[in-house]
């Protein structure tokens, strides 16, 4: 990367100089500085392009040797002769664990955001906001360690309960054993993305027009009605984009999933049964067996590429919503 940056920061100055000269007479200092600044920006673009190119290139290497179907094979054996691997289980696990995380985290996050922005007394709200901020900074490996050594042993009770009352659905069947399932991963991910979603939602709720709120109050609305009438509609797109950002984080989370999941290359019908895997978790877990001699590493890169594309889509969507909201609120102001 420094390799990238070196020629780029050095190279651009002549180019803008020529272009700039036609526009206006730049002083040499300005020329150099502009070149540096533009060069850095271009470096960023180059890095992004390089990521896409190198991942695709290495992935193609693995895919051409793959004897299984990359999309549907329920196996990950790139070191075998012939190599066989597929992302079906990983895609399923990634989506399912992230969706569980979203379902659990988003409503609660909205609750906390409302709590901080509209319910809690100021004395409580400010430190709370601060604490939530700090929690967003707790490294994922610490969540993972806590998840594996504290959360997992404490979840069996909940799972037995779910099995007793919801087991008939088939999705929440629990057969005993360590609570190292996709659902556990989902719960841990939910806890991890709570601060992220809360922070963004809170900012949005705070910006809701005070005039609307006061107007609603003047009409005799209860506090909940105020929120429903003026705060939530205003914040809807903000909350959606906050959720997407959280989703992006959940999709790509590695360590927290790797520590609590009992991986297997099977799709279990019950979410509470151990098994399954996610893209990121599989990369972390299989990396040490991916010998440089075979295509193990390239196969993992191929799965990483899929993850990359998925997160790009999700994040792009979130940004799009935010951008639209900006225009909308700008017109309103």
């Amino acid at each position, binding site marked *: 990367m420094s390799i990238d940056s070196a020629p780029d920061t050095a190279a651009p100055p002549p180019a803008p100089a020529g272009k700039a000269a036609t526009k206006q007479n730049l002083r040499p200092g300005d020329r150099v500085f502009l070149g540096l600044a533009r060069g850095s*920006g271009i470096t960023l673009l180059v890095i992004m392009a390089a990521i896409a190119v190198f991942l695709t290139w290495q992935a193609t290497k693995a895919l051409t040797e793959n004897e299984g179907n990359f999309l549907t094979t329920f196996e990950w054996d790139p070191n075998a002769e012939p190599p066989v691997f597929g992302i079906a289980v990983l895609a399923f696990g990634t989506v399912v664990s992230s969706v569980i995380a979203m379902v659990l985290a988003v409503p609660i996050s909205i609750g906390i955001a409302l709590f901080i922005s509209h319910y809690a*007394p100021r004395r409580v709200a400010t430190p709370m906001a601060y604490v939530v901020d700090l929690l967003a900074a707790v490294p994922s490996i610490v969540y993972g360690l806590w998840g*594996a050594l504290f959360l997992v042993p404490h979840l069996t009770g909940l799972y037995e309960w779910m099995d007793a009352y919801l087991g008939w659905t088939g999705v929440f069947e629990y057969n005993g054993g360590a609570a190292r399932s996709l659902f556990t991963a989902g719960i841990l991910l939910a806890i991890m993305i709570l601060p992220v979603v809360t922070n963004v939602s809170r900012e949005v709720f705070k910006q809701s027009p005070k005039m609307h709120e006061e107007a609603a109050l003047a009409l005799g609305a209860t506090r909940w009605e105020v929120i429903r009438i003026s705060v939530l509609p205003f914040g809807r797109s903000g909350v959606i984009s906050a959720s997407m950002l959280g989703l992006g984080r959940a999709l790509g989370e590695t360590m927290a999933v790797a520590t609590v999941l009992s991986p297997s290359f099977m799709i279990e019908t019950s979410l509470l049964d151990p098994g399954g895997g996610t893209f990121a978790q599989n990369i972390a877990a299989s990396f040490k067996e991916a010998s440089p001699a075979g295509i193990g590493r390239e196969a993992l890169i191929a799965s*990483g590429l899929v993850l990359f594309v998925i997160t790009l889509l999700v994040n792009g969507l979130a940004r799009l919503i935010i951008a639209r909201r900006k225009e909308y609120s700008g017109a309103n102001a």
Partner: protein
Amino acid sequence: MTDVTLDKSPVDEAPVPTTGPLRQPRLPNWAPYGIGALSVALGCGIGLVAGLESRIQWGLIAAALYVVVTFALTTTVEGSRQARDRLATSLVWVSFLLAVVPLFSLIWETVARGSKVLDGTFVSHSMNGVITLQPGGGAYHALVGTLEQIGLASLIAAPIGLLTAIYLVEYGTGKLSKAITFFVDVMTGIPSIVAGLFVLAFWIIYLDMGYSGFAGAMSLAILMMPIVVRSTEEMLKLVPNELREASLALGVPKWRTILKVVLPTAIGGITTGVMLAVARIAGETAPILLLVFGSASINTNPFDGAQSSLPYYVYEQWKLGNEASYDRAWGGALLLIAFVMALNLLARGIAAWKAPKSGR
């Protein structure tokens, strides 16, 4: 301010119902506390009687009871609109508690179990020659690795990020800056493991370099750049245009204006942003796992050979799976949290200290 009025308004300005007394009947002020106490007691009671072992379940039962009882009581006494309001209030409170419990437990566990091993020896010794089944050893090598890796990452990412932000704010118009803005957004969302895979593909597979702290630093830099760009951009936008115009009007070249007027004005916010970015990457494990390989002994040279890092150390010790290693993992986690939190607090301190001057 509005928060305060919000608290009182429904009471004073409650709409007059068409029939019945002018004032709606209200639950006494202590009702929420009373119901709360009742549901906690009932929750524990049910938990005890049913023989539920998990305390979390007790709490959940109590929370559910609280919501139901409040709703029922308010419906009968105050009417359905108020009941819905109360329901929303209690749901908000419950969600808040639901979130606080695990987060509090996380901090508590880490501090309680980490402080057992965290002492002078722990921070000044490596794991070299320590038999993993036995207590002893420390995280010094990991600490050194982390410091060097995030230092290198910052050296790469901070200048590039800073200059990019300057380009976007001070020069940026046209397609290039739009493209950069878009891709910075995209880059923010790159999962850390993908950044690690990229460096693996480029540096280790393509260029055939070995595992090293520097390889890890490069992937961390990729993760850090967009954060630096974003925060610096925000800060630069806050610098009043009058300052720039005044400086330019005096005939100061634009680059000197940026360096001497714009940057110093925003330096507090920029520093905060950079430090928050550093705090974020300091906790990354996944790229280190792929690129730095891990090592038990001290390696102060980040350019050659395997190193360790604090987050990797935590993962590695957890994987060893015995009590002594778990203790070390918690110790490492505590050290890591302390480090990240210190960076955060420092960053926020700087932000607060500089805030009035930037006119916010």
